């Protein structure tokens, strides 16, 4: 009979579900099954059990082959590379815990690194918009208990955050929302007919890249002012209808994703979406929330916030903290040849950065700390496999609404494997020696 571990936190997406149950073998060494999780979350747990998992660091050789090295050698290579670099890039930080992020930032301070997280190609534009106009928001439980108007704008939770709608936003019955989905009106704004759009009360099939126009039109419509016949492919009658629907709610929320943050107009879209929310607060209660992707990308922004005051694109290379997106963001630094070493942890730029940036990583001394084999591990000089945070070690992670939750350890990592935190602590100690700090 297998044991069941309850209240397990899912280290996959920003929804950070904390109600998983994981069945492990009697000896506590093997994960047998995962309950309550979505398909992606379950796969993350089960994948850690793969028999072909890399369990020791590997160095790339001259001929392109890989040679297994010890963790000691990996610490030494990482520390000497970072200490010797004039301006290393330390990127990622979104799929690891806050303790690792905090100690990693100390390394960045000692060696004068530029620290950047995955927001740089995701919700970084949101963070910039928040610096422009703020953000009225709430926790996900508020949506569960109060919300009667839900807008999904440029996001597709049915696939990207699979349990979002059932746990928080559409289907559950909360304190003031006893009728569940029947009491809520759901609006989806997306150029595609996604599975999320198919469940909506209203789907605004907007022309691609015209979000700014439609958001502005809504602000006009709230005031009942004149609109042209169509805006962004949506007839004005529909826009007035949606505006009324939004104003008539008792508690509303706009969830938005990369459809607006990384399409034409970028942060200006979000400025406008936040202003829509501000306007609605003149009439009733409205909120807006980014659908953060990685389970702890939010946490890395918080850790850097309290240590240095900036949520991403954190440049420590001058000896003090500096922030200038477009200048201190990863891709800009890489394509301009401004960094001379790359350290990646808890992220996969090899799969998500433009090819021109990935080639630069390939050319530079580079380290990738990641439990998986990824396109990034393939282009880096050193791959350091580590224990899975949230499966094989605990630690703090921040949900998309900034709520911190302590992840649980379910099983031990394969024998002799280090955690992110252990590896970074070793590197910190060695970097201190090398730098005399």
């Amino acid at each position: 009979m297998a044991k069941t571990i309850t209240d397990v936190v899912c280290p996959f997406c920003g929804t950070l579900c904390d109600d998983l149950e994981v069945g492990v073998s009697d000896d506590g060494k093997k994960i047998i099954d995962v309950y309550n999780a979505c398909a992606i979350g379950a796969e993350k747990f089960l994948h850690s059990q793969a028999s072909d998992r890399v369990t020791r660091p590997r160095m790339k050789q001259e001929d392109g082959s890989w040679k297994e090295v010890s963790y000691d050698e990996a610490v030494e290579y990482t520390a000497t590379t970072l200490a010797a670099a004039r301006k290393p890039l330390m990127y990622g930080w979104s799929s690891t815990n806050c303790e690792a992020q905090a100690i990693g930032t100390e390394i960045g301070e000692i060696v004068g690194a530029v620290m950047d997280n995955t927001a740089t190609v995701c919700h970084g534009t949101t963070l910039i918009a928040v610096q422009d106009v703020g953000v009225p928001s709430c926790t996900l439980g508020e949506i569960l208990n109060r919300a009667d108007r839900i807008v999904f704008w440029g996001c597709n939770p049915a696939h990207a955050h699979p349990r979002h709608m059932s746990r928080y936003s559409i289907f559950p019955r909360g304190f003031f929302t006893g009728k569940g989905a029947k009491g809520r009106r759901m609006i989806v704004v997306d150029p595609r007919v996604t599975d999320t759009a198919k469940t909506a009360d209203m789907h605004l099939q907007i022309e691609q890249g015209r979000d700014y126009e439609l958001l502005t039109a809504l602000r006009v419509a709230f005031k009942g002012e004149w609109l042209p016949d169509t805006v962004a492919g949506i007839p004005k009658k529909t826009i007035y209808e949606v505006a009324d629907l939004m104003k008539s709610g008792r508690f509303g929320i706009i969830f938005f994703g990369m459809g607006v943050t990384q399409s034409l107009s970028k942060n200006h879209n979000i400025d406008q979406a936040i202003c829509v929310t501000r306007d609605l607060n003149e009439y009733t209660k409205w909120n807006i929330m980014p659908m953060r992707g990685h389970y702890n990308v939010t946490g890395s922004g918080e850790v850097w916030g309290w240590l240095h005051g900036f949520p991403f694109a954190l440049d420590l290379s001058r000896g003090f903290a500096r922030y200038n997106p477009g200048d201190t963001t990863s891709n800009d630094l890489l394509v301009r040849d401004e960094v001379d070493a790359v350290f990646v942890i808890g992220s996969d730029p090899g799969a998500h950065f433009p090819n021109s940036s990935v080639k630069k990583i390939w050319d530079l001394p580079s380290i990738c700390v990641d439990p998986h084999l990824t396109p990034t591990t393939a282009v880096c000089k050193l791959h350091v496999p580590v224990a899975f945070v949230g499966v094989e070690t605990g630690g703090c992670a921040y949900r998309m609404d900034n709520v911190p939750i302590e992840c649980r350890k379910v099983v031990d990592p394969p024998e002799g494997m280090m955690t992110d935190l252990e590896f970074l602590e070793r590197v910190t100690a060695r970097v201190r020696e090398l730098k005399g700090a």
Partner: protein
Amino acid sequence: MAEYLIKNGFVYDPVLGINGDKTDVAVKDGKMVETSALSNPAEIDASGMTVMAAAVDIHAHVAGPKVCVGRNFRPEDKLFRATPQAGIKRMEGGFSVPTVLKTGYDYARMGFGFVMEAAMPPLYARHVHEEIRDTPIIDEAALPVFGNNWFVLEYLKNQEIENTAAYIAWLLRMTRGFGVKNVNPGGTEAWGWGLNCPTVNDPVPYFDITPAQIVRGLIEANEFLGLPHCMHVHANSLGQPGNYTVTLDTLKQAEGIKARNEFGRDQVLHHTHLQFHSYGGESYASKSFESKSKEVADYINARDNITFDLGVVTLDETTTMTADGPFEHHLTELNHLKWVNTDVELETAAGVVPYIYSPKTFIAGAQWAIGIELGLFAKDPMRTFITTDHPNAGPFIRYPRVYKWLMSKAAREDMLDNVLKYGNTVRDRCYIGEIDREITLFELAQMTRAGPAKALGLAGMFGSLKPGMEGDVAVYPYNPETSGDPEDIERAFSHAQYLIKGGDVVVREGQVVSNGNKRTFWVDCKVNENPQVERDVAEKFKRYYSVNLANYEVYAHHYVPNPYVIEVDATQ
């Protein structure tokens, strides 16, 4: 461990009754001792300087989600304000919302040893503790907010004090919290629907309980438990003209209740940043708005069970942040600057808006005057504490400037004559021009050391140099015999010459030389088993919280790696 002898300073210690006498002070093994107990001490020459116990801040927003929002959404707050890493000291940045590193160093440089984070949303307790953990040197604790919590609203509606108390004890343990904070009682829950409770008699939507009931109920529950600190309230209608009547109505809820605790605390209600709550008139216009500081101070002077802190406006560009969600919305409507709001399920809300207290406006000048007046009208410095409600009325690094204004009529006159554009109108609408009082160094030590330590129930550890107390000593380069210029006060108290914290030197000759060994204080209160509260907690987490009950408690070592637990037994 080290021994230190601080020689020949002018010592101020209200607890020992020392008022500027030249005497020696001794620290050994982390504690204050008699000078005779030292064997081979390192000597610190404090001649010509002022020696006090390290200061205690009873109310500042220095750690947690809204503070971090303030940092992250205001890059402009850090522009040209970064300090590089040097020696053991890490990089610093920020002004009104400094990074945690700068927070710890700045407090140490001002001679502080203990700081109370004034509002912790329970669901975000981990975040608060992570920031506290990473703040160097100073000891800290955090007050979870209770005044809009659904459990509290439901229990108090039925006058169930014992259940409320059991819930408070449980939540303090879950969040590693210190005491009971109560922000805009009921109004923040109403804000869930975009509404507010402007007076103490406005019922909370759905929950049908009034702010007055919440205030009185939380005082009673706090005394039922006998916690070290009393109920710590930020009343309804903060910042509204004419709100002093709401403030008086709130203070009246403490009438007839006596303190019941084993920590030497005598008061049952602490009203924070009273400046924001002492306004008369009907609008912000200078022909209507007026100071009601005297009326409020008179009420408090005539009672002995209330303490308060000032919340002095320092006339800076700052970042306001509070669990008073509707107030921050009101503020963004006023100044049209960026606005962050976060409603927290079943518990509270918070808002953040930048704000510029410009000396060129009448209203900022009047607010400045009201804060100072409260400090000068107050008869008992042991119940009157100096704060700026950091960062709401101004950043905490301005405390020494506030000391200057309180200690020097000349400095106040200079403000009214030369700094404030509408100084004469401020004289006209406020009391400040009529007051001659100047706070003494002895009274300053009461208002920043002995007083707040006693109100927090920490009089046995902080606020005095008595043998047996924590070895926390601050030495300021201020000579009370020769210093005449009010600017000397600000300069000296901004840059302590020495700070000894927990028996170790952390500031030497004005420079931070150690990251200290900071502790997180929390209160572990034992209560009788209470099946109803246990059932209610289980039920609410199952149905209405977005996290599971098992994932709520801040248990892991990395949140509170160096705890100091105060145990309270409320089982009888």
